[in-house]
């Protein structure tokens, strides 16, 4: 059957029911079926991160996930970051540091940063570099993007240290960074 499949998912806090074609990706469902065009399309091979969204709290490239797979998931896109017309602290930090140039990669950058800060509230620079490495910025505003993430982290409350699952390659016990 290549007929449309009904799926139900929560997008930005709203329960949505939508019919998707089996071969359509979550990216297509968000952009075309749900009209959420803040999630961007670029490389379609999971390299650029323009299509990054959070699915059940984890960042994914929505171009590499079938829409049908998202059935029953909780999805966060860039449209869901601001609440009540107020930018999220991360969005505000991106604005304050002039981190956005052309803006096209920014939705993906914000979501990767959001996922990183949820897991590591006070990341090191290396952790930020690692956490955002899947989001290409061709304007290469990386330094200011990293500063924005640090600024957002600095504004967050100190949290108990948890072992980082993302990020710091140097944090692997007993493993100096493997020579490349």
């Amino acid at each position, binding site marked *: 059957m290549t007929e449309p499949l009904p799926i139900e998912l929560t997008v930005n806090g709203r329960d949505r029911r939508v019919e998707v074609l089996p071969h359509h990706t979550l990216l297509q469902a968000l952009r075309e079926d749900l009209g959420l065009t803040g999630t961007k399309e670029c490389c379609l091979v999971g390299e650029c991160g323009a299509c990054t969204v959070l699915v059940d709290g984890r*960042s994914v490239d929505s171009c590499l996930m*079938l829409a049908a797979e998202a059935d029953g998931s909780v999805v966060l896109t860039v449209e869901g970051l601001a609440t009540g017309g107020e930018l999220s602290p991360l969005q505000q930090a991106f604005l304050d540091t002039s981190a956005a140039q052309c803006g096209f990669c920014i939705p993906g950058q914000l979501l990767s940063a959001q996922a990183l800060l949820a897991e590591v509230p006070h990341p090191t620079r290396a952790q930020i570099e690692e956490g955002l490495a899947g989001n290409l910025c061709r304007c290469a505003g990386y330094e200011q993007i990293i500063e924005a993430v640090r600024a957002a982290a600095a504004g967050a409350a100190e949290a108990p240290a948890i072992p980082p699952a993302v990020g710091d390659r140097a944090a692997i016990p007993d493993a100096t960074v493997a020579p490349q």
Partner: protein
Amino acid sequence: MRPFAYERPTALRDVVGLLGEHGSGARLLAGGTDLIIRLRDGSLRPDVVVDVKRVAELDGEIREAGARVRFGALTTMTDIVASARVRRDYPALAEAALFVGSVQIRNRATLAGNMCNASPAADTAPALLVYGAEIVARGPGGSRRLPLDAFFVRSGETTLNPGELVEAIELPVPDGPRGSVHLRRTRRRGHDLASVTMAVSVGRDGRTRLAYGSVGPRPVVVVDDSGTLADPAAPEDAKRERLDTLFADARPSPTSMRASPEYRLAMLRVLGLRGVTTAVDRLAGAR
């Protein structure tokens, strides 16, 4: 992307049934980070994609089972990186998993999928090979296990029988201290496909296991029983000579655009020596 049907069975027998029904027209979907790329570029054209993530018998857990540590078929690279157990006992695997793509990719890509794609450049394969991994396969006739080394045939091809899938991957619990490491060569520091990927493990018994990928049609594991590589006091020249012998069968692709055969072979030796040095150092530091 070319249309296909989507199935999401909840029981393993249904997966096996679908595989039997559709044969090579069915493709299993776990993380999808490789599959969906190939569906889009048309190099795979299945009639049905079988999503195995809701199969009751499959899980993404890493747990001890007897003298083995078992990685469920749905274990992602992120799970591996986050596992204290893996970092402690299988550091080369944790390091390799951390080199698989970006965070977004690691959140989805599975260890089992990485094996089933049988890419010669699969970063986790060398680590699994040096640790002596076994594949637990499930098919119409039940389960069987086979050493990972007997699993790979060539790029994209494994010894899985028609209708079989990988249920889990298991690693023996280490029987004593060892030092191990993963290393790779890429075109940039950010995530990239490896032009050489390697793992090295050195035990107290003086045996050194090296596995390498991206230097031939499939990942290869070789063993040094001479004790030369594990000996911190052995002269570097002797180690180089030993590595030359061990790597004699490496056959890098002459047509790859990622690196020339000459460079890959040279890097195989550079990484071999560095890997051995680091593994020996780690062994010395191990309690």
